[in-house]
């Protein structure tokens, strides 16, 4: 009884969806932006439904599996213009041209009422590697730091870029489904605090999506990183209509351009051009990874999001496969 009452109340709220963008996924996400019954989440942990939008690459499959297993129960996956993975039983598929809102709402309702079973994990619930810590207390590498217990690289000393103090660095992989990165782009970052020490491209971004104004989608992603979700949604809706009217003025009112410091003048120029619906030219000579070193997290995301797909493909191609790294189980933080 209580459960049914809870479901009755809960199904009235907006359906929290985490959208994993494949090719064209960006434009498909924009179609959902104006639907109040769907709320697109930033973290997979906050969602109930994983929506795989657009075709994905073979290389993205492991990340997709890990992403799925981070969804809290009750959960479901919807394949919108994408081919379901073999693990997905009773898969819900929607053609790319169709609008998924009605299906998503019905699925959400069934999940909450318990009429559809929650999806099980796709990966075994065990550490990807066995414990390989060293020392009396399993503390891993040198002294109290470093080492790779369970195949996870732990923090280890590295030189701080800003004033050469040796501090601990930690390596993580972000993407390819992180909302604030261009779809498909996956980066391996070595961080000290929120400062990026080193970056490596794991998989490149998808080419530009069709069906919507690409510069406006890019602007929406940057506005999202600037903490302006409402304006970002407005930019997505404008991208669907392909009219940038009033967007630049609204962004100016919110201080979106003023918030960018002088070091990010290039980002500011590209954001301004994108908000007008155009693209500022970039010579594209320096590698993306070189431009990221020493940057703080938010600035780095803003800079990555500011490049148009053509430039991004030029400056951030896939890295050569690294011989030394056989175990590719870096902790996936796509959520």
């Amino acid at each position, binding site marked *: 009884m209580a*459960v049914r009452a*809870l*479901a009755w*109340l*809960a199904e*009235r*709220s*907006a359906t*929290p969806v985490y959208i994993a963008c494949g090719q064209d996924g960006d434009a498909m996400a924009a179609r959902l932006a104006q639907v*109040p019954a769907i709320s697109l989440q*930033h*973290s997979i*942990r*906050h969602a*109930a439904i994983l929506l795989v939008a657009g075709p994905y690459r073979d290389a993205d499959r492991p990340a997709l599996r890990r992403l799925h297993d*981070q969804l*809290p*129960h*009750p959960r479901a996956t919807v394949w919108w213009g994408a081919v379901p993975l073999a693990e997905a039983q009773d898969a819900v598929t929607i053609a790319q041209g169709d609008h998924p809102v009605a299906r998503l709402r019905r699925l959400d309702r069934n999940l*909450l009422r318990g009429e559809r079973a929650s999806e099980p994990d796709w990966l075994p619930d065990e*550490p990807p590697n066995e414990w390989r810590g060293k020392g009396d207390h399993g503390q891993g590498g040198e002294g109290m730091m470093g080492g790779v217990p369970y195949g996870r690289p732990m923090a280890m000393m590295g030189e701080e870029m800003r004033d050469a103090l040796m501090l601990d660095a*930690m390596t*993580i992989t972000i993407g390819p489904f*992180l*909302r*604030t990165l261009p779809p498909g782009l996956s980066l391996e970052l070595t*961080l000290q*605090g*929120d400062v990026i020490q080193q970056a490596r491209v794991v998989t490149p971004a998808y080419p530009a999506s069709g069906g919507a104004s690409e510069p406006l989608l890019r602007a929406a992603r940057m*506005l*999202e*990183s*600037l*903490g*302006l*979700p*409402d304006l970002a949604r407005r930019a997505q809706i404008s991208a669907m209509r392909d009219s940038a009217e009033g967007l630049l003025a609204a962004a100016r*009112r*919110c*201080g*979106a351009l*003023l*918030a*960018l*410091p002088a070091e*990010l003048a290039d980002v500011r120029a590209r954001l301004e051009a994108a908000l007008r619906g155009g693209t500022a030219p970039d010579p594209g000579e320096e590698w993306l990874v070189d431009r990221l070193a020493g940057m*703080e*997290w*938010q*600035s780095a*995301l*803003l800079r990555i999001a500011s490049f148009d797909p053509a430039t991004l493909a030029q400056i951030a191609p896939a890295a050569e496969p690294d011989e030394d790294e056989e175990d590719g189980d870096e*902790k996936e*933080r796509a*959520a």
Partner: protein
Amino acid sequence: MTAIPLVFALLAAGIWFAAIAERFASARRFPSAIVLAPLWQAARLLSQQRVRTEYPDALNWALAPLVYGALAVAGLSVVPFAPGLVVAPLDTGIVLWGACEALTIVAVFLHGWSANSMLPLIGGYRFVAIGLPAMLLSMFVLIAAALPAQSLAVGAIVESQRSMWNMVRQPLGLPLFLLLGLAISLRGPMDYGDASDLSGGTAAEVSGPHRLAWGIARLAMLTAFAAMGASVFLGGYLGPWLPGPAWLALKTAALLLVLTWLGCNLARMPAPRMMAALWLVLLPLSFLDLVIAGVEALL
């Protein structure tokens, strides 16, 4: 003892009001469904699983939202609803509020750190760097407000505004104080803890009831802050015709609206720039505020 139910009534109303105001500010229209939307959202979070990360510090992780909410209640306990109508009539009211601010930073950091995940850790770490200077300048602003009252008790500060509100007497005070409000309730331009660029920052790994508790604690802190700001700068319960608690509630609601609007409509600058702004521009401004208050007290 009638003050205790009043505190909880104000908190509950404030949380509800702020949740609705947030939705209104982002939708820019007012469908009647918005009034019940917080309840529906709460029901959804209650019916969702609470996920566990790998090797979290489970105790601190679960404790963080509770501490955050308890600090909001503690902060509200020194706010008077009418002359003498206050839960904790402390002589050191604003020092207690300052301690609550400082411990809030600890609670948010712990929430990020104990999840044992990278993005929440960065959120907590970054929040401390911004939160500490913001808290520092709020203390100067509060001391300036205490000067004309010649007391550290919140009740005395309210009484000292019978002739003129502190908002008018010390024009720099309220804007600087609002900055802290945005920071400790993790909102908009000062949201360095739970930011969207970190996929939700310290809350990136939480789901279900835990996320509900965290959300409620955030709104409770926002409400406590608004009530404190209303008492220190807008004359609290003072006002004609209506009884004291009603005036306090109205002024709190007004500040809640201002904070929500600011939170939705201001861009967040990268942390290093905000840090420079806080230390180099805003902290000196808070000293100036203190000087103005001192000169006024001498005249």
